[in-house]
């Protein structure tokens, strides 16, 4: 039965979607929103796509975890705003010494954890030290430059061994989260943080419930409860939204805009993101070792048509997206030009080659179909190998056993991967590594970003990989909902301002 359904499903989904949009006009009208009267007792149901395997914020990788727990449940001394600025959070203020080596944070007073215990400077010291000392903790390496962390009265003083301009940014991520020293909760299934929400319930394979933290130190959350519903299937998400079961649908398919907006209950909101659709090329062997072949592939792919097919996002021609420092338009390094691509392939003696693309199956087929057709136009036969994500991690990420690979890298400011020769990108250019080191050590913004720009340009000129698109955050927001974040929601989803009208 399985085989039959999958084959027929593809053909019939289209018909179903049409019917769905036709019917949605007949849906019962939902209570009209009165703007400006938020309901403090509201429950907001948010559809999310991917459920984390467990809730261990220290060890378990994945944006699915950052998205829900960072900012909402766990906080650090500093955090990031939607426009990627750094602001004090559990620190009431911070200062940096003139030599950029000593960071002094004044720990905010009157902060309690969800279980009622008070936040102390010692908790901060312990939290940072734990991350630094445990190699298995996420982002442990990001505190590599930290020489010492000490509490001094209400202050915490962090001394670096060398200037590190990414240090404060790193503290806005996993590495900087502050947990309670000696906490006995099982982090895999529970959480005890200082954020505006407390983790009330996790129904595995179904939903996570956050509730307003009534003893929160800052402005209290505007809704009583947020239910994060994990619904992998896009059609189920659409039906659920049209039936009034969700207030917000994240990770939506922008091409279904008309359907979800049909009865006026939702508006599709597109926001910028740091999602980079990365076509990695293994340059260690085969025809891809030749830079001309890699450039030919880049010039053969029509990025504009990919963005059009996805219905959202923008083109990207280098390793750094617009939201991150160091961005520049690098289209000139490989403009779309199939004829030039053919010539490059001829020069490299690589006409009529066959390459295999390894792609995790959850990305669907839109991108790979365009790649197959674009590359076919210049004489490259592309075989698509759809695999489960763990298989991708094992084959591509760990064993580097691949030719071409596609993955959406969502993390902000992750240029460092291009400076790590052991990373699965297989890219090793000492000049890039040097430029990045200069960026890290630079104390002046303009100089620093100049280094980063140069490094990114080199990566693109070396044709180290291709960037198929810079994704957008695609969220359908109920018309009675305000304050839902729009930027980079795949990585962070701060719900502090979320409100729902009566």
């Amino acid at each position, binding site marked *: 039965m399985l085989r039959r359904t999958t084959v027929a499903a593809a053909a019939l989904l289209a018909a179903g979607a049409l019917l769905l949009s036709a019917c949605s006009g007949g849906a019962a009208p939902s209570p009209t929103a009165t703007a400006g009267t938020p309901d403090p007792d509201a429950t907001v149901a948010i559809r999310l796509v991917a459920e984390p395997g467990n809730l261990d914020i220290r060890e378990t990788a994945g944006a699915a975890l950052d998205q829900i727990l960072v900012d909402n449940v766990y906080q650090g001394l500093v955090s990031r705003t939607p426009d990627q600025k750094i602001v004090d959070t559990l620190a009431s203020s911070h200062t940096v010494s003139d030599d950029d080596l000593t960071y002094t944070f004044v720990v905010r007073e009157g902060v309690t954890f969800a279980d009622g215990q008070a936040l102390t400077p010692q908790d901060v010291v312990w939290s940072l030290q734990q991350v630094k000392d445990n190699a298995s903790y996420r982002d442990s390496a990001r505190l590599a430059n930290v020489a010492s962390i000490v509490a001094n009265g209400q202050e915490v003083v962090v001394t670096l061994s060398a200037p590190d301009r990414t240090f404060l940014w790193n503290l806005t991520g996993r590495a900087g989260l502050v947990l309670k020293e000696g906490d006995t909760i099982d982090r895999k299934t529970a959480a005890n943080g200082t954020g505006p929400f407390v983790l009330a319930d996790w129904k595995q394979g179904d939903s996570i419930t956050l509730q307003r933290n009534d003893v929160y130190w800052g402005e209290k959350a505007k809704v009583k409860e947020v239910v994060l519903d994990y619904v992998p299937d896009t059609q189920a998400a659409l039906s659920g939204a049209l039936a*009034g079961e969700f207030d917000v649908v994240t990770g939506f398919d922008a091409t279904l805009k008309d359907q979800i907006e049909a009865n006026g209950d939702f508006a599709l909101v597109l926001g910028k993101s740091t999602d980079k659709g990365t076509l990695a090329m293994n340059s260690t062997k085969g025809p891809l070792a030749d830079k001309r072949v890699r450039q030919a592939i880049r010039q053969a792919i029509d990025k504009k048509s990919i963005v059009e097919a996805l219905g959202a996002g923008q083109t990207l021609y280098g390793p750094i997206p617009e939201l991150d420092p160091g961005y520049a338009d690098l289209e000139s390094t490989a403009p779309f030009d199939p004829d030039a691509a053919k010539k490059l392939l001829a020069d490299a003696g690589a006409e009529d080659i066959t390459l295999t693309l390894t792609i995790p199956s959850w990305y669907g087929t839109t991108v790979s179909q365009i790649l197959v057709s674009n590359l076919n136009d210049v004489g490259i036969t592309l075989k698509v190998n759809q695999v489960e994500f763990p298989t991708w991690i094992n084959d591509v990420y760990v064993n580097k056993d691949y030719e071409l690979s596609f993955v959406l890298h969502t993390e902000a400011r992750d240029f460092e991967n291009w400076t790590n020769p052991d990373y699965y990108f297989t890219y090793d250019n000492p000049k890039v590594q040097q430029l990045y080191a200069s960026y890290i050590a630079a104390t002046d913004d303009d100089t620093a970003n100049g280094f980063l720009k140069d490094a990114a340009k080199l990566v693109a000129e070396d044709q180290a990989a291709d960037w198929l698109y810079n994704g957008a955050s695609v969220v359908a927001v109920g018309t009675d909902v305000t304050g839902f974040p729009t930027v980079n929601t795949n990585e962070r989803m701060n719900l502090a301002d979320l409100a729902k009208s009566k």
Partner: protein
Amino acid sequence: MIRYALTRGALLLLGLFVASALIFVTLRVLPGDVAQVIAGLNATPEQIAAIRERLGLDAPLPVQYVTWVSGILRGDLGSSLLTGASVSSELVQKGQVTIPLGLMSMTIAILIAMPFGVISAMRRGHRDGTLLSVGAQTLAAVPVVWAGMMLVVVFAVWLGWLPAQGFPRSGWADPSLAFRSLLLPAITIGVIEGAMLMRFVRSATLQATGQDFVRTAAAKGLTRTQALLRHGLPTVGLSIITVLGLQVAGIIVGSVVIEQLFSLPGIGRMLVADVGARDLPKVQGELLVLTGFVLIVGFAVDLVHRTLDPRQREAE
């Protein structure tokens, strides 16, 4: 009869043992492991190794297998490497969705198949009988995904009578809501399975009509319908029990699709997620229980046959 049951019981245990080895080996062939999944992108080899060691994945495979089987013999099915939750508690929890869903689909399937199957057999050659069997053929060919979506569009989105997806967070605390959440998925599976089952009922009924004892009963003065209902149907029932037994496995497989489609927190969706996370100790425990369940149903079907069908007892 007792000897028969004992032999069959021993075979069942042997089957479970073979299944445990097969499940264990097959899962180990899958590329990737849970430590890599936990560590994710940006992980260093050292980080992966540290997690692997903490989870006990560095032990040799035969040791892992023996540990697992001896756990089972002590009544411990194992637990998740990701959350520490025990397989049995997870199955009990997710079973609250999948078991009622399976029972409801089966009930719907039988309610459709029995009357319509018998009628279409008895009306063979008539226009309504033909219409019924053509209708069943068509229904049985409808893909589950499409059928489910159409039902959702009409009953949830359009009419707003039933939930479009999901299961209440409070579970069966609100029985009516829980029941209504399962209704559309159950109808989706039930109608399609029922249409398939109907063809079995129809052919079993036709076969029964031609049996000597039915003809004899008719010759003794009963009408054809009376003869069939009184003497023919018990034999139809027997073959339907066999088919139903086989369909248990089909419904478990169907739940994998339907729970995804309707976002139901059941066993099928859990299995997909666990395989996707390479949480192998959990997957192998779940698969063994499911296999055991299917084997036990088969065992029960055999015993029921034996009890109900005098011909089999006499043959002994």
